[in-house]
C-alpha cells in the first residue's frame, strides 16, 4: 500500500503550480461567462469575449492562462491524518515550486528586493509563501496553491481605520482602493477584503478571501450583506473590464473577518485579476491524492 511521503508532497506541489497556471477554476469561468452576458457596453463586451476566447485557447492547446506566473502562495490545512513534519513539508513545497518552474519551463518572477537578482526558480528567501491552518475536523492534508499575479497584487492596500470611523470607513476604503486602481489589476476579478484582526492578520484574511470560490458568500449574514453592498457599489462605478468602462468591474467581493482590538478597525484589500487561478489537492494517509479547485 502506498503512503504519504515528502517526495509525494513535492510532486503534488509541482503539479499544483502547473495546474493552477493552466486550468482556471469552473466557478471563475462561469462568473466570466455571466459577466459577458450581463455586460451592455460594447468595448467591455468585446474585452470579456476576448477573455473567454483566451480561456478556450489555453484549454485547447494546454497553455498557461497568463504569462505572469506570479509569486507562489500555498495554503496548507493540516487535519488529523497524515501526521506531518512541518519543516520537511515546507521544504517539499519549495522543491516542488522550483521544479515546476524549471521543468515546464516558465518564467520565474521571484526577485531579491535590493539587488533585484532573479534566480528564475520562483523561490528564494521567504518564498514560497506558506500559510498554515490547523483544523481538527479535517480528515486529510489539504494544499491550496494560488499563483498571485503582480498587476493585481500591486494594487492591494491596508488601512488601520479608527473605531470612531466605523463601518463606513471600511466600506469607503474598499470602494476607493478598487475604483482608484482602474485597469491595473486586470478587472473584473475577485476583491478580497479582510476586516478586523491585527496589521498582518487583516492582510492574510484578504488573501484568504481571494482564494474562495467565486460568489460563495460569507456564512455570517452581516458579512454576507457587506459583500453584497460592496459588490454592488463597485459594479455601479462604471470602471469596467480593464478600466475601459462597463457594467462589470468585479466578479465578486469576498470578506473574511476576525476579532480586533477595542482601539482598532483594520481593513485590507487584496485585488485579484480575472484570471483568478488556484488549484487544490487533498492528500490522504494512504498517499492517495485528489485534485480539485
Amino acid at each position, binding site marked *: 500500500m502506498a503512503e504519504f511521503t515528502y517526495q509525494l508532497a513535492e510532486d503534488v506541489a509541482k503539479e499544483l503550480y502547473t495546474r493552477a497556471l493552466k486550468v482556471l477554476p469552473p466557478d471563475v469561468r462561469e462568473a466570466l461567462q455571466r459577466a459577458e452576458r450581463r455586460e451592455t457596453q460594447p468595448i467591455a463586451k468585446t474585452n470579456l469575449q476576448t477573455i473567454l476566447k483566451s480561456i478556450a485557447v489555453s484549454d485547447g492547446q494546454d497553455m498557461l492562462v497568463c504569462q505572469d506566473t506570479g509569486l507562489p502562495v500555498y495554503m496548507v490545512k493540516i487535519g488529523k491524518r497524515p501526521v506531518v513534519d512541518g519543516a520537511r513539508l515546507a521544504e517539499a513545497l519549495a522543491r516542488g515550486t522550483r521544479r515546476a518552474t524549471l521543468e515546464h519551463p516558465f518564467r520565474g518572477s521571484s526577485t531579491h528586493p535590493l539587488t533585484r537578482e532573479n534566480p528564475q526558480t520562483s523561490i528564494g528567501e521567504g518564498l514560497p509563501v506558506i500559510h498554515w491552518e490547523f483544523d481538527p475536523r479535517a480528515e486529510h492534508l489539504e494544499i491550496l496553491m494560488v499563483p498571485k499575479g503582480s498587476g493585481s497584487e500591486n494594487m492591494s492596500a491596508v488601512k488601520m481605520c479608527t473605531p470612531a470611523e466605523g463601518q463606513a470607513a471600511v466600506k469607503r476604503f474598499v470602494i476607493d482602493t478598487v475604483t482608484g486602481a482602474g485597469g491595473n489589476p486586470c478587472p473584473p476579478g475577485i476583491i478580497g477584503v479582510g476586516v478586523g484582526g491585527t496589521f498582518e492578520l487583516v492582510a492574510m484574511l484578504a488573501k484568504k478571501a481571494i482564494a474562495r470560490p467565486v460568489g460563495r458568500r460569507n456564512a455570517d449574514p452581516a458579512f454576507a450583506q457587506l459583500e453584497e453592498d460592496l459588490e454592488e457599489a463597485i459594479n455601479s*462605478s462604471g470602471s469596467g473590464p480593464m*478600466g*475601459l468602462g462597463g457594467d462589470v468591474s468585479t466578479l465578486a467581493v469576498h470578506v473574511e473577518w476576525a476579532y480586533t482590538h477595542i482601539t482598532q478597525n483594520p481593513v485590507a484589500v487584496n485585488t485579484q485579476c480575472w484570471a483568478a487561478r488556484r488549484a487544490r489537492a487533498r492528500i490522504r494517509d494512504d498517499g492517495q491524492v485528489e485534485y480539485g479547485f
Partner: protein
Amino acid sequence: MATHTLDTPLDEPTVRSLHVGDAVTLSGRLFGLRDKTLIHMFDERREAPVDLTGYPVLHTAPSLRQTDRGWEKIIVGTTTSTRMDRFTAPLLEECGVRAIIGKAGLYQASLEPMRRFGACYLAIVGGAAALETTQIEEVERVYWPHLHPEAIYQFRVKGFGPLIVAMDTHGRSLYEEVRQRVKRGLPGIYERYGL
C-alpha cells in the same frame, strides 16, 4: 464601434484616422520590449539595432525557448504600460513608433507627443496571453538577447487583437474619461450606502 483591419508598418494618416473606442486588428510585424529595453535605449543611449519606424511596439516579457531552429514561443503576454510612460516621447520622436500596445494605459502627458508625432495607444486585454500567443505566428528575431526576457523581440503576427484605441492623436484618452466618470459618480455611491 468602428473596426479596422490594418497591416504594419502603419503610416501617419492611418494612425491619425483612428479614434478612441475604435477596434483594431493588426497583421504583419511588431516589436516587443519593456522596462529594461527602454532604459538601455534612452537612459544608456544605445541605438536600437533595428529600425522601428512605422511599427507598433508591445509591452511584453515573453517566455521563449531557444532551440536549434531559433526562438520558440512558450507564452507571450502584456504588462502594465504606466511604468514605461516616460519613454513615450523618445519612442515616437527618435524611433518613429506609430503605436504602443499595452495594458492600463499611459498618463495624460503622453497625449501631446501622440498628437505631435502621430501615434496612438492600443489597449490589449491583460491576462489573455494564451490568445495573444496564438496570434503571434513567429518570433522572427531577438535583438539584444543578453537582455532577455527584456530584449527587443521581432514578432510576425496575424489578426492580432481586437485591440481598443484607448489614446488617440486627437487628445483623447479613454482611461482618463472613464476615471473622471467614476470620480463624478463616487459621491452618489457614498450617499447610497450612507458613507
